């Protein structure tokens, strides 16, 4: 409960009510495929917003429509309340950082960063000052006379960002900017990126297919699948309160258990899983289905399930709050142990974050559910 409150405060702190960027029923069709389907999104001023989804779900196309490189088939984009219909990329107050950086290989770092200002006929002195300032800000001063090809991936990334930021755009767009970096660097650069965004308070739309990246960086995340917006909310909401099975599955590890709703009271839900039954607190379960007799799919986070050695009884757990299962496999990961537990022919992933207390379990175990949020979705067809 306490956690939930802090989370709420967290999202309210940064998000504003006025939308800096509004996507109104935005659609894009490429002969045959619908890349983006009727997308509605309101992006607050100063927020860091992620477009998240599997490859091919239409993230890049959305970003390119916002930047003006791709013309929408239908719908409109509003930036600071103004329609962008027919406005070419260079007239929009957006700057884009491309996935492959797109640095000009025949220009030095300084020339790359100053390119946009030069195009806009910025006076020489001002140009030099602004470029110097941003190079300094990004820690690139030492390499300002070098060619991009002689820089490391992380440095190239920063040059690309500097080139976009020096234009002081209202909206910064980034398309998987970290995907060409190795894993370790990616974590470091994403922290840097987020810090820079915070300091400048610039509205940022960021495309990624990496859920961890999205959770770590975003104020708000828009999850997309097959061109359709699945859920739009804070990382917290998406993780603990996914609106549908796709979001639940895409973000974080998750187990889905086929269950049947046996009984619904004011405070509890009674489910049967195979031959076992379990009672959950109603408030702990976000449910889109809750009619007795319905087949449902119970979605559970690995860390929300308690695990302990099976006690007493044979075949079923003694408590109405527990399910009896058998450990199929485990991995000791230091901070926690991950178990694959079979319950009534279905496998659940369970993380034990307190390994020293219980040691490594094997054989029959009891799983305690409903300690924190779970979701009930309609059963898979």
């Amino acid at each position, binding site marked *: 409960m306490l956690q939930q409150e802090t989370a709420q405060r967290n999202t309210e702190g940064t998000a504003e009510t006025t939308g800096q960027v509004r996507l109104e029923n935005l659609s894009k069709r490429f002969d045959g495929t619908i890349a983006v389907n009727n997308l509605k999104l309101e992006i607050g001023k100063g927020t860091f917003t992620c477009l998240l989804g599997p*490859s091919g779900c239409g993230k*890049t*196309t959305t970003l*390119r429509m916002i*930047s003006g*490189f791709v013309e929408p088939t239908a719908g409109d984009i509003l930036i600071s309340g103004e329609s962008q219909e027919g406005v*070419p*990329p*260079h007239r929009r107050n*957006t*700057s*884009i950082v*491309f*996935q*492959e*950086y*797109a*640095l*000009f*290989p*025949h220009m030095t770092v300084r020339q790359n960063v100053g*390119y*946009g200002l030069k*195009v*806009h006929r910025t006076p020489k002195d001002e140009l030099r000052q602004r470029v110097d300032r941003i190079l300094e800000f990004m820690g690139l001063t030492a390499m300002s006379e070098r060619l991009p090809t002689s820089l490391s991936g992380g440095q190239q990334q920063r040059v690309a960002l500097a*080139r976009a930021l020096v*234009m002081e755009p209202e909206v910064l767009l980034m*398309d*998987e900017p970290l*995907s*060409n970096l190795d894993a370790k660097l990616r974590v470091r650069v994403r922290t840097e990126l987020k810090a820079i965004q915070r300091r400048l308070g610039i509205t940022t739309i960021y495309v990624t297919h990496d859920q961890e990246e999205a959770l770590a960086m975003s104020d708000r995340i828009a999850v997309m699948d097959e061109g359709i917006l699945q859920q739009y909310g804070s990382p917290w909401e998406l993780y603990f309160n996914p609106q549908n099975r796709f979001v639940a599955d895409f973000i974080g590890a998750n187990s889905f258990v086929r269950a049947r709703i046996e009984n619904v009271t004011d405070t509890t839900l009674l489910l049967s899983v195979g031959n076992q039954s379990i009672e959950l607190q109603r408030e702990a379960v976000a449910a889109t289905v809750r009619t007795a007799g319905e087949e449902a799919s119970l979605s559970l986070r690995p860390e929300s399930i308690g695990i302990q050695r099976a006690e007493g009884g044979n075949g079923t757990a003694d408590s109405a709050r527990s399910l009896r299962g058998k450990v199929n496999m485990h991995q000791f990961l230091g901070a926690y142990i991950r178990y694959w537990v079979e319950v009534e022919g279905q496998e659940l992933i369970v993380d034990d974050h307190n390994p020293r207390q219980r040691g490594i379990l094997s054989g029959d175990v009891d799983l305690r559910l409903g300690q924190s949020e779970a979701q009930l979705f309609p059963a898979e067809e």
Partner: protein
Amino acid sequence: MSTATPTVELQRRSGVSRLLGLMKDPTVVGAIIVVTVPIIVAVVYPVVNVFIQPALEHWSRFFTRTRYLEVLRNSLFISVLSTISATVIGFGFAYALSRPKFPGKTFFRITSILPLISPPFVAGLSLILLLGRQGIITHGILGLDISMYGWHGLWLAQTFAFYPIAALTLSGVLKSLNPTLEYAAQDLGQTRWGIFKTVTLPMAIPGVASAALLVLMLALSDFGNPMVIGGPFRVMATEAYVQVVGMQNLGMGAVISIVLLVPSFLFFLIQRYWVSRRQYTSVSGKGGRLDPMTISPTVKWLLFAFLMLVSAFVLAIFVVVVWGAFARTWGFDWTLTLENFEFTFLARMGHIWNSIQYSLVAGFTTAVFAVISAYILFRKQFLGRKTFDFLVVLPAALPGTLVGIAFIFAFNQPPLVLTGTAAVVILSMIIRNVPVGYRTALSGLHQIDVSIEESAADGGANTLQILKDITIPLLKTAFTVTLVYTFIRSMNTVSAVIFLVSAGTNVATTSILGLAEHGYWGEAAAMATILIAITSTVVILFRLIGGKKLFEL
């Protein structure tokens, strides 16, 4: 599994152990010898011969006599002129073809490929028929008694003969540029013209330089056009021929061919050590690449009009040659007749037949040779690998004129007397195409995943088996492309074979030039038509049976 199976050398090791590792694999040692020895015999040995041939006196005469200085000046003048115009036109074609939604792409592709598969002097021949003393335009329509003989006509002919080469090279260059860079510039506020000026063009410059140098090299050693249309305007390639064949002055021929070698060797070195390093190939990002930007409507239609004009001229060149083949007496009697073809079948069929046979043998041998050498270089680590690579591509640095003269020196005396044989003609065809074939095969090999072979080696297969089961099937494309490409180039080649053919081994191209030299325009046109028909048929058939594109335009 057998334990004694030799494993393939795939790791990088120190020189000595690499050499030792190699020795364990006799097939490889054998293959290296099979590749290196012919190159030393057919390239290094003849070229060395050319260099030791001329006396000091030949050199001093070349650089003091006005006759030679004028030829040198003419050559440089016309080659630079043709290079500029051909490169500009070639860039226009390549640029248009690299852009989406440019109208008439297929048509422009055809008009750029047509000259590539015809003998280069077709342009000159056709210009004579159009603008010569008996030309349709000059004589027929305008009733003038002037001629295009001289540098004007030569310039026009070389421009049309060589712009497709520039287009072909530049097309590869422009396609390799990452379109995202242009979008990045646009996002930063740049105009289309600004993008072209500050991003596209600067990045294409190394490629443009490379294309221009290639054209320069071809224009310098062009023999057919100067001979057909040059008239009194003599250039180095024709002068070398006059010296060697006409005056038996082999020393002066050697001097001229060495002078011709200078620019093409420079080209070779620049290409090898500068351009390839400066080529701005982009990091290919994952995900949907943006299409190259479209051109603004005004520029698009201006460029379209320009390319149409050039294409119309190219088509006119070919139409006129075919027409000339069927006209009774060009300039006087336009009635259609088959007489010219009858003559060809009676008197010159042997030469066409020679061309076909030699080109087939050359094509096949070149393909085998190129594929083997590429395979060795790509898969094996051995001492002297760089030298090996250098030797195989070296013939690309040699102008045809030099190859022709070098072969005369080398194979006119023991230990190898080949003068007057078909072998020496075929050998020159092979040598001149090995570098292209080798590069084609190398790029084919780059597409093969090394791991395929590694896993086969783990499975206990020896080198020969791997070659047979995995690499050769994968190299088949490179093989057939080289075969067909060499065949077409050999059918059309002039500048080297002109020195090497004898009465019995004359080929179609030199035979046509002989006819043109004596004013037998109709007969020359008929033979040229047959030649073009053969090469076009081969290209079309090759495409129809599913062969890879010969010309990536």
